[in-house]
């Protein structure tokens, strides 16, 4: 047992940090530091910078153009990324679709799509959920009917994160209603420019446009866009979900949020004294920090055990998903509470980079308050998406505990 990074890992960290220092565009960094809105363009620009360095996909094997990094290296990269205030990369293509395509896709698909993901040329979104099928994903109804060389797709997907930017969507569609629901699902790649697709924005509770409804009206999809075999999509979908959930622990983001929380608690004052000196508030920070200390190691233990066994991730990722989402929520809540009165205003313009600030507002409000209450509201999603906490607990109790 040893929790220290070895000299090579330390060297790697130095290299990663130096890269972020040198290459992360200042305007993007500033936006993330201040919690301002980031655009698709910002994320794509950053993906292209990483791609040029050869770091376009930190979780892919080398033969597909990935870094081939091990679990610890990926962890270090993610930690440094969050700390440097670099934007996250598009998870739907890099962390969800790609592993599926690399494992179950054919050579033509791999050769066409993977390089375009790596270079940032294609933006992907995830088309799993439907209005009637959230937790019970297997009940999905969007249909794909084979007609010659094409599937004709009809139905509706919902909650599609950043779907408004997407060039492509990977969808679970129903190709058979005969056997169990799980057995009639296929995994289809659909060009968002296809005729018959409509995207409708859904505004979230923080007032922001992050998710969408996507409607399919007789959309023609070439059969070459089927992943693997027809009616085997559920297997690929579950494989993908495990990858999605393992990424949800978000240790790097939690560490960054914790640092920010401490910063705010040192700057905010309560009756003239720094809030961090108030032991009641400090204990709350300490409590979350302990959870995070544990989760960092739990996360590495689970991931490295899987890597060592060369196995696939299993139901243990549910532990990571539950804890990671709860911790990020608690940190968001504490940041909001640290603000006191400054949590109350909602000055929408302040989310834009160019906002000059109203000099009459409290200096805390001008410097960091604007996104924080909105983040608390927004982060409620983390215990809902990618399988809600209740669903994860069902998985733990059934698949691990055998209850």
């Amino acid at each position: 047992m040893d929790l220290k990074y070895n000299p090579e890992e330390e060297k790697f960290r130095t290299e990663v940090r130096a890269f972020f220092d040198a290459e992360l565009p200042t305007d993007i960094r500033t936006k993330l530091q201040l919690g301002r809105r980031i655009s698709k363009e910002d994320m794509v620009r950053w993906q292209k910078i990483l791609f040029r360095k050869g770091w376009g996909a930190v979780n892919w094997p080398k033969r597909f153009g990935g870094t081939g990094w091990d679990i610890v290296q990926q962890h270090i990269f993610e930690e440094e990324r969050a700390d440097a205030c670099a934007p996250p990369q598009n998870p739907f293509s890099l962390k969800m679709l790609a592993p599926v395509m690399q494992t179950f896709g054919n050579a033509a698909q791999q050769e066409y799509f993977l390089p375009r993901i790596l270079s940032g040329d294609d933006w992907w979104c995830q088309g799993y959920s439907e209005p009637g099928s959230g937790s019970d994903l297997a009940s999905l109804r969007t249909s794909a009917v084979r007609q010659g060389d094409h599937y004709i797709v009809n139905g509706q997907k919902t909650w599609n994160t950043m779907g408004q930017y997407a060039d492509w969507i990977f969808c679970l569609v129903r190709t058979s209603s005969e056997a169990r629901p799980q057995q009639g699902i296929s995994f289809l790649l659909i060009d968002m420019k296809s005729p018959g697709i409509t995207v409708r924005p859904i505004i979230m509770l923080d007032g922001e446009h992050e998710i969408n409804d996507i409607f399919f009206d007789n959309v023609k999809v070439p059969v070459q866009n089927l992943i693997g075999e027809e009616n085997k999509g559920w297997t690929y979908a579950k494989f993908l979900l495990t990858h999605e959930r393992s990424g949800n622990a978000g240790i790097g983001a939690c560490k960054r949020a914790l640092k920010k929380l401490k910063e705010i608690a040192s700057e905010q004052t309560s009756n003239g004294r720094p809030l961090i000196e108030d032991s009641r508030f400090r204990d709350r920070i300490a409590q979350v920090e302990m959870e995070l200390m544990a989760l960092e190691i739990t996360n590495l233990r689970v991931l490295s055990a899987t890597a060592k066994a060369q196995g696939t991730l299993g139901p243990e990722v549910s532990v990571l998903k539950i804890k990671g989402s709860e911790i990020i929520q608690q940190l968001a809540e504490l940041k909001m509470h640290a603000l006191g009165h400054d949590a109350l205003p909602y000055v929408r313009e302040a989310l834009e980079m160019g906002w000059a600030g109203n000099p009459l507002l409290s200096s805390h409000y001008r410097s960091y308050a604007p996104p924080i209450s909105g983040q608390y509201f927004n982060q409620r999603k983390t215990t809902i998406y990618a399988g809600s906490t209740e669903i994860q607990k069902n998985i733990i109790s059934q698949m691990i505990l055998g209850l």
Partner: protein
Amino acid sequence: MEFNYSEEQLALQETLQRFISRDYDFDKRRKFSASSLGYSAEAWTQYAELGLLSLPYPEEFGGLGGNAVDIMLVMEQFGQGLLLEPYLSTVVTCGGLIRDAAPTPMKQKMLPQIAAGELKLALAAYEAAGRYDLSYVGCTARESGGSWHLTGRKTVVLDGASADHYLVSARSSGGTGDRDGISLFLVPRDAKGLTVAAYPTQWGARAADLKLDEVTVGADALIGAPGRALPIIERAVDRANAALCAEAVGIINALNQATLNYLKTRKQFGVAIGTFQALKHKMADMLIAAEQSRSMAIIAAVHADSQDAAERHRAISAAKAYIGQAGRLVGQSAVQMHGGMGVVDELIVSHYFKRLTMIDLSLGDADYHLANFSDTLRQAVSSV
């Protein structure tokens, strides 16, 4: 003990419920909130006609002589309907303060104007560096030639955007955190040297920050004795907190109702999600939280008019802390059990959740009030 509302109170409750369903549904509320005022001027006129704006004032000043329980009932409906009008600030906090502590001529002038819907007020008592501490007053008040000159800043003045007058706390003697030396002034919005920076709040109403630069008011603007205003302000804020507790209870019940409906109608895995035990238990916890919160809101209301400052303060802090915690549980659980539908702007659920969250952060959050309450235990032990 008597736990029931009177006939008159029930009639008032019904009137408000009818008003909300007829004139203040969720779509209308959205429009009011998006307007430049941030609330409905028409609704305000109707409140005047219904007697809501004169509810807590003595009859000699044109009031209806109502008590804090009447206010509780009104505020519960404000929660239920997510009403945006500056009732809390104008009628409960500032109107109540004027009723209790202002010189008679000021009462004679202002209370009837409030009752008629012609005058709105807001309390400017907090400063950025003081967090929730009302004794942290850096804003200064200097007397010269029979006038007072005020200089400083006030932060997040609730309903401050539309107020015609502000009640401003300022220090006439002592150091920033001292309990003594705080005076209270009535400052008109158009006073020279006063700048108002208004903005929307997270729940759609409006608030403001104030900057006072040598704002001059006459001796008749003073409320209470010079340097002795803190207890007056604390009493008003206690009363406002009791009202916020009632508003929170209205929201908690509305959220529970909405969530229960959802559990019965939303189907996954071929059954209503309310058949899953994990959700049943969560919902049961929400019901318990609602019952306990109502009791706390009643305790707060019954103490709101109390002359015993220590007893009043202790009870209301307990209620506000408890309801802050209960509201967190109910709000978060309601969102969670709605799944994706819980985090969209389109449903009222997220709007209830946001207001409930912001009620906790207004006029002292759960931790602040827990500390207040907890400190009284120490005093009780040391006096045994």
